[in-house]
């Protein structure tokens, strides 16, 4: 079932939480609401669940308006950050609670609970209480409670944030697999861009109550629509340099860096910001107009790669990711080369992308 959000606004008193959110989550897709804390992503999820009222706008499930429907009438299921398992009930009763409330015959409840418990490999825990389970097991029970009712829409609010790092990686894969098995539309909230990138079909990047960009993980990574998205997505974060556009090149200090094709109508001399990911920069032996020169101020070994910080001016450092075998010494003078096709250009004032293909992408939306 697809989920359509039309002109959604939300405010608490005078404080505006969400402004003019328009999104379409296609049926059976895994969609992630991604953003820093306080961006409104959880509020938006709770509005889809019916736990929070909509101040203005319309929420449609498969074309049907659900604004006034109670959570129980929306056929949704939700996994909470704290799991919210009923502490006095056994795992079996936790899993079957939604069905019991809906007066499903006991035999059917038993079947559904056993089936879900088998899928999640928690069938040996059915008679325990939540307090007797590990974090990962609780997480599975919470998932199971959501799966047991076969909902149309699956909502998850940072479900992995209470797990340790290793388990989180395993669960990412499992969540994705369950999503494919369940055939439901999944809306997933996280502040972890890696989670969003690895699991999603589509990502809505949110900031200050607005959707900054909505697209595939590939889109938001390779074609960030604005400075916020560019800086938020990617690790290590993107380098930004201030300068001006001049004859299709980017003037910063002595260099004139090459730029990809810009959107039409970009005025010459416009103040701009370019962004380049550390992975897209390279160290070269000779200086040139497409390179900035500086001294190595920090070398971090990441494993198979090295992250090198180069001081290109008094106040500006840029980081370059190179192969771990590259030998660089602290204080060494290096040249950092920029390449046109991996450079992102943003208007310094509006912070919007100035790239030709970003403009096309926006028009498509």
């Amino acid at each position: 079932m697809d989920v359509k959000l039309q002109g959604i606004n939300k405010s608490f008193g005078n404080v505006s939480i969400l402004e003019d959110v328009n999104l379409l989550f296609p049926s059976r897709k895994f969609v992630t609401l991604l953003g820093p804390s306080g961006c409104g992503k959880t509020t938006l999820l709770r509005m889809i669940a019916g736990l929070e009222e909509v101040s203005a706008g319309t929420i449609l499930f498969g074309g049907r308006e659900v604004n006034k429907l109670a959570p129980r009438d929306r056929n949704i299921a939700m996994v909470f950050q704290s799991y919210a398992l009923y502490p006095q009930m056994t795992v079996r009763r936790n899993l079957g609670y939604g069905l019991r409330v809906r007066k499903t015959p006991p035999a059917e409840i038993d079947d559904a609970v056993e089936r879900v418990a088998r899928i999640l490999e928690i069938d040996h825990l059915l008679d325990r209480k939540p307090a007797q389970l590990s974090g990962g097991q609780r997480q599975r029970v919470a998932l199971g409670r959501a799966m047991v009712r076969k909902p149309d829409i699956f909502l998850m609010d940072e479900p992995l944030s209470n797990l340790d790092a290793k388990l989180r990686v395993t669960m990412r894969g499992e969540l994705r697999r369950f999503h494919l098995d369940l055939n439901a539309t999944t809306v997933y909230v996280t502040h972890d861009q890696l989670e969003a990138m690895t699991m999603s079909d589509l990502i809505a990047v949110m900031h200050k109550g607005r959707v900054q960009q909505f697209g595939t993980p590939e889109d938001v990574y390779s074609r960030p629509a604005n400075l916020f998205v560019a800086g938020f997505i990617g690790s290590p974060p993107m380098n930004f340099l201030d300068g001006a556009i001049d004859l299709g090149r980017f003037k910063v200090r002595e260099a004139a860096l090459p730029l990809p094709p810009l959107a039409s109508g970009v005025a010459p001399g416009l103040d701009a910001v370019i962004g380049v990911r550390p992975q897209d920069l390279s160290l070269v032996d000779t200086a040139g107009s497409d390179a900035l020169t500086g001294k190595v101020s920090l070398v971090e070994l990441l494993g198979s790669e090295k992250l090198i910080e180069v001081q290109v001016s008094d106040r500006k450092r840029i980081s370059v990711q190179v192969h771990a075998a590259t030998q660089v010494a602290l204080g060494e003078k290096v040249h950092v080369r920029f390449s046109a096709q991996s450079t992102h250009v943003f208007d310094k004032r509006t912070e919007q992308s100035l790239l030709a293909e970003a403009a096309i992408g926006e028009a498509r939306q």
Partner: protein
Amino acid sequence: MSRFSFLSSDRAVGLLFIAPFVVTALVFMVYPIAEAIRMAFFNYNPLRPDLVSYAGMSNFEFIFSDPLFWSSFGQGTVWTLLSILFQTVFGVGIALLLHRKLFGMAIFRGMLLFPYIVPTVVIALIWRWIFNPEIGVVNYGLLSVGLIGEPIYWLSTPTMAMASTIMLNVWKYTPFVVICVLARLQSVPLELYDAAKVDGAGAFRRFLDVTLPQLREVLIVVIVFRTIWTFNKFEEIYLLTKGGPGTSTFNLAVYSFEQSMASLRLGVGAATGVVMMIMLMIGSVVYLRVAGFGNEEKEA
């Protein structure tokens, strides 16, 4: 090892630190209880301290064969159970209301403490005026709206006197229950309610399946404390009805007082106290076991 080294050891310093508590507890807790138990086995008339004699079990034999002891026990049990029942029901209900986030709720929460703060003697005297059949405001109000045709003798018929003492106790100590429950309510995770809503539970189901289980432990503790305090309660009954009319509102505390002070049988009064203590100890332990207090922690 020399004597000096023990005095300066950590052990000696530790003993020094706990000594004040141990001494206080011995003087103010252990000694009075021990003295009461001792006195239960003696004949002791405070006006004739020279005639103290060992009584063996005769004080206990006396109370167990005294019909007034048994009727006091029965009335005390009724008064305790009904008081606790109403306090718990009202306490939970009021706590749920006060838990709502409404404008001005803080004022109501503050007012709530009022009955708990006012000294019992003041309350009891005011209630005696309120319930006065001729000039009391309750009868005046009921008569003037026509709910009753003639004055009700609130404190002078056995049933009404018992009801009045229970009302006073409920009125005064419900705030205690409210405060305990309210504190617990404020720490119930909100996500549990959200989860129950998504699961399809209506307001009543959410109360049964989320709120009540979370209140379980605090209610067990509150009920134990209130039971002990109420069963032993003396001043409310004595100040409001003096145990009357007749002996219809006697509980064991009033019985013990009457035996000690009016009949000058301190040994019998002490024996009553010992019996009450044993009853409450057995009752509390059985209740905590049956209610399963602390089981959750043990399982975890």
